């Protein structure tokens, strides 16, 4: 639990469970949102915005991992597979809509009203969620290392086999699916540059973060946390663990689908190489560095790792060496965090906050 500033006391559970329990916290969050929505996009350069978009994408993808590992305790090393399902669903749907816009009234209507991309996001969430449940089914019987292996199987079956060999052939577009500019639009809002992607990213990240916080304080989230802490005890207490595990897989898959359909706005093409196994591991690293089970940890971890990448990129002169330095930096970061800061960045942030809440009259 967090400590409160001196003189603030809760008098009811309702108060204690408020979204932003104190007035100062509300003020702080509103300032943060205003800065993110109104100041950053108009003052930062396009390069900085593109980095922000990468951070946002990492947050969206890692939230699903956080939900599975941090909330439900189901280890997953194959999250990139579900992100890939989302990205490909979204890309194929919007491309089909654009292709048949002139010949078919249905696709034409979707394209003209700018409904194709929003609809494709919904479809991507649904499909990725169902695909995730398919590979989550064994969790009814196995746990621990077996689940890790199942998710690895999901990764290699989905990305290296189904998508790379079969889905990539759809429409005869070759290995890459490139999305022509102007195809992605929500209503009349055409997503063209980094700034548009930034706004979309911010809306999605804010929504997902709010959803995660809300999940955590509902019956669903409490059931997940009970399963994480001790699944046998949870079962004895009447939690239907099979059902709640599948719900966790579905929710995580939906978040992955969302991340995948956002991904196509920032690069305008998709390829199986964007969703290889190391991405899955990378996102688990994000939540470890940020803090397992902490929602703000996901955000801190994403920012830390993406900024680390920018730093590594600026140091490595030759482009080919960047890949190795990236691997080395990530490996070292994960090892060092696990050895010296196992609670992650969110714990450090919590300590800093507490210091200032109690300042200058801190007591031990």
């Amino acid at each position, binding site marked *: 639990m967090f400590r409160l500033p001196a003189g603030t006391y809760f008098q009811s559970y309702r108060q204690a469970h408020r979204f932003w329990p104190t007035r100062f916290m509300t003020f702080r969050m509103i300032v943060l949102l205003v800065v993110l929505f109104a100041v950053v996009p108009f003052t930062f350069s396009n390069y900085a915005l593109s980095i922000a978009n990468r951070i946002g994408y990492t947050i969206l993808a890692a939230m699903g991992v956080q939900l599975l*590992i941090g909330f439900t305790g189901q*280890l997953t*090393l194959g999250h990139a597979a579900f992100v890939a399902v989302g990205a490909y669903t979204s890309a194929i749907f919007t491309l089909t809509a654009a292709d048949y816009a002139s010949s078919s009234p249905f696709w034409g209507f979707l394209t003209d009203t700018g409904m194709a991309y929003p609809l494709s996001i919904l479809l991507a969430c649904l499909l990725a969620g169902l695909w995730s449940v398919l*590979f989550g*089914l*064994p969790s009814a*019987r*196995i746990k*621990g*290392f*077996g689940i*890790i*292996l*199942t998710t*690895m*199987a*999901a990764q*290699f*079956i989905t990305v*290296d*086999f189904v998508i*790379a*060999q*079969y889905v990539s052939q759809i429409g005869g577009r070759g290995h890459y699916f490139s999305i022509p500019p102007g195809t992605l639009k929500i209503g009349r809002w055409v997503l063209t540059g980094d700034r548009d992607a930034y706004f979309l990213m911010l809306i999605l990240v804010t929504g997902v973060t709010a959803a995660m916080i809300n999940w955590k304080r509902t019956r669903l989230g409490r059931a997940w946390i009970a399963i994480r802490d*001790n699944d*046998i*005890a949870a079962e*004895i207490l009447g939690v239907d663990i099979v059902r709640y595990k599948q719900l966790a897989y579905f929710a995580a898959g939906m978040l992955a689908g969302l991340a995948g359909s956002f991904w196509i706005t920032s690069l305008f093409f998709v390829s199986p190489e964007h969703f290889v196994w*190391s991405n899955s*591991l990378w996102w*688990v*690293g994000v939540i*470890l560095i940020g803090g*397992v089970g902490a929602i703000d940890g996901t955000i801190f971890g994403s920012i830390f790792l993406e900024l680390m990448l920018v730093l590594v990129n600026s140091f490595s002169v030759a482009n*080919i*060496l960047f*890949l*190795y*330095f*990236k*691997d*080395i*930096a*990530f*490996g*070292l*970061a*994960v*090892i060092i965090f*696990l*050895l010296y800061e*196992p609670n992650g960045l969110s714990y450090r942030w919590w300590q800093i906050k507490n210091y200032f809440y109690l300042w200058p009259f801190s007591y031990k």
Partner: protein
Amino acid sequence: MELFLQLLVSGILVGSIYALVALGWTLIYKSSSVLNLAMGELTLVGAYVCLTLYNWGIPFPVAVLGSLVMGAILGLLVERLVLRPLIGEPVLTVIMVTVGLSFLLRGLVGLIWGTDTVVFNPAVFPAESIRIGPVIITPVYLGGFVASLILLAFFVWFFQGTRWGLAMQATADDQMAALSLGVSARLVYAIAWAIAFMAAGVGGIFLGSINGLNISVGHLGLLVLPAVVLGGLNSVPGAIAGGLIIGVLQNLTGGYLDRFIPGGIKDIFPLAFMAVFLIFKPYGLWGWVKIERV
């Protein structure tokens, strides 16, 4: 029938290499309950060290020995620096530290040796294949098989016959009892990691000399995971059997299923098979059934 025999034999030959690497994995798990995901990179390191030594003109057996020594040193280092502080931590922590290790090793391997495929030059094994009855065997596979058998026999003897091996068995069985009898758990962990690095290195040398050595050989090293799960995580005979089964399975799917479902089903089938197999036998073939209490 001839095709079947051919696939079976080459499956067993490759499977013996997997069995060797899987044995190293199981040792680490048995003695310290560390689930090691860096196995693919361990194979890479051993293979590259041996290849570099060999291409400098050092005879092949000596180069293999050199890679074994290097593997033992690296294993001891890794155990001391990274794994020992984390003994007894949750599964996720231990797994992710090995993942971090695998990224680190892969980056270092790429930095030192690059991404281009390299081959043993001059070739260690003659290129022309040997014919035994209806079955054609490539010398590389045969070499890998023989080396794996020798090492497997050596390791089995090590466990049964030496003092350190008995210490490892005792620790795997009951760590507390072993500690109270004066067995040094630290020594056991160190030996387990050294052996795992050595076994993986030898596996990598032969996997790498089949089609040349590059980063993707590390992916083959990952196939030990289905092998150990099939055998049941903490069973040494299980790891060996699992490795052989995975090798055979991989070759059979490559021979029969690839025609109907083209596109590399050979590489993913062991994992897919595992995912289904686990539903029916969650503890593998010979694994210990864990009884959990609240």
